[in-house]
């Protein structure tokens, strides 16, 4: 999506809100998956990431004020990929994944979100959209810094991290 695709501020906020909601939903989904598959450390991490994104979504909704946001069908959002930029790919989850993998997925999402807002800020001709997009770029940069700090505490695991001594596909 580029700035030229956005007709007005409410539509921009609708996109920003949907992006944060979908990112939160995906993290919530991953948290549930990890809980079910007995990976509590990563489940807790994803749950916290979901809370952060949900809070961000609420803040964007508050910017819309009493007028609320225009309704767009899921397929009417103009994303540059099949899903909104901040959403982690659904197939990046693995039942043995570590906090390192979760944080890498989160960092990628935050960077995509930052790029999304940055592109809008550079391309829009609407001053109100530009101002808010620039603010959101700064917020996403804050998220990138936060996730990067967390990632420093979780070094990359050994290459055999996904090896399972009792894999689900075992036939004997």
């Amino acid at each position, binding site marked *: 999506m580029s700035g030229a695709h956005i007709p007005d501020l409410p539509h921009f906020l609708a996109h920003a809100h949907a992006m944060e909601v979908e990112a939160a*939903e995906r993290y919530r989904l991953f948290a549930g998956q990890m809980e079910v598959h007995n990976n509590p450390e990563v489940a807790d991490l994803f749950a916290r990431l979901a809370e952060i994104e949900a809070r961000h979504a609420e803040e964007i909704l508050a910017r819309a004020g009493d007028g609320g946001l225009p309704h767009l069908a899921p397929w009417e959002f103009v994303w540059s990929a099949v899903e909104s930029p901040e959403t982690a790919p659904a197939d990046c*989850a*693995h039942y043995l994944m570590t906090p390192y993998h979760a944080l890498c997925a989160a960092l990628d999402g935050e960077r995509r979100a930052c790029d999304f807002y940055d592109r809008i800020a550079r391309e829009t001709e609407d001053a109100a959209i530009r101002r808010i997009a620039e603010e959101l770029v700064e917020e996403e940069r804050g998220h990138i810094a936060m996730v990067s700090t967390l990632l420093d505490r979780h070094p990359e695991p050994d290459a055999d991290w996904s090896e399972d001594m009792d894999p689900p596909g075992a*036939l004997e």
Partner: protein
Amino acid sequence: MADTTTTATLTARDYNSDIKPIWCPGCGDYSVLLSISKAFAELALAPENIAVISGIGCSSRIPAYTNCYGFHGVHGRALALGTGLKVARPDLTVLVAGGDGDGFSIGGNHFLHACRRNVDLTYLVMDNRVYGMTKGQPSPTTAADWDSALAPGGTGVRPFHPLVIALASGANFVGRGFSGDPNGTARLIVEAINHPGFSFVEVLSPCVTFRPDQREWRKQVHPAAVDETDDAARAARRIMTDDGFNTGILYRGARRPFDTEGLTEIADVAELETEFKL
């Protein structure tokens, strides 16, 4: 489409139950569930006016993960259940969902006749071309040469082509989606539910455990180069050259749905039993 009784705006999340799916992380079925929830929300259907019916298999767990009415039935019989329910309660929106093994092997005969009968319901098959729940046996849609521990060298059997069969058997709406595109699939489901008669939607949904090769589907799937048609002959010509990865609506027909109005209404069980007296 059924009337709704809910006036408040529902979000996709409102159609999910509190039960956490036990599918493998990375499974495409999570995204199909999301697409279904988004479609219901977009249609503003009240959960109590929806019934999600399934058979057996990983994907057939889906009714438990929605907060609509649901029936997790016996293997291969989801369409029989869904057909009966829709005939008895035409006011409900009936979504029958399941996998390729349940739908095309154990339930293959029901599939043919559900297409023929053209009752107004939607059948969504999460096709991963493998029996995942039972550890990776080839299914009816598995390629003949797929080599695995359970079928060394492959089955050598030509795979079943669901869209061809649906079209030839009389389905009134035929389309294909991809789990990796949940918004596009949500749109397909909305169109399928809104279209009268039997709507068939195949959703390519990777099994990351037994078919890790299917992660590549993300790169192979593409929107169909041609628009949908209401001409069955034209749709047939298109589908015969299909590469298996075209997505979108193939066919939107104009056959009159099965008429439930003319059926005799049976008020209670005692009355029903008289129908079976020898």
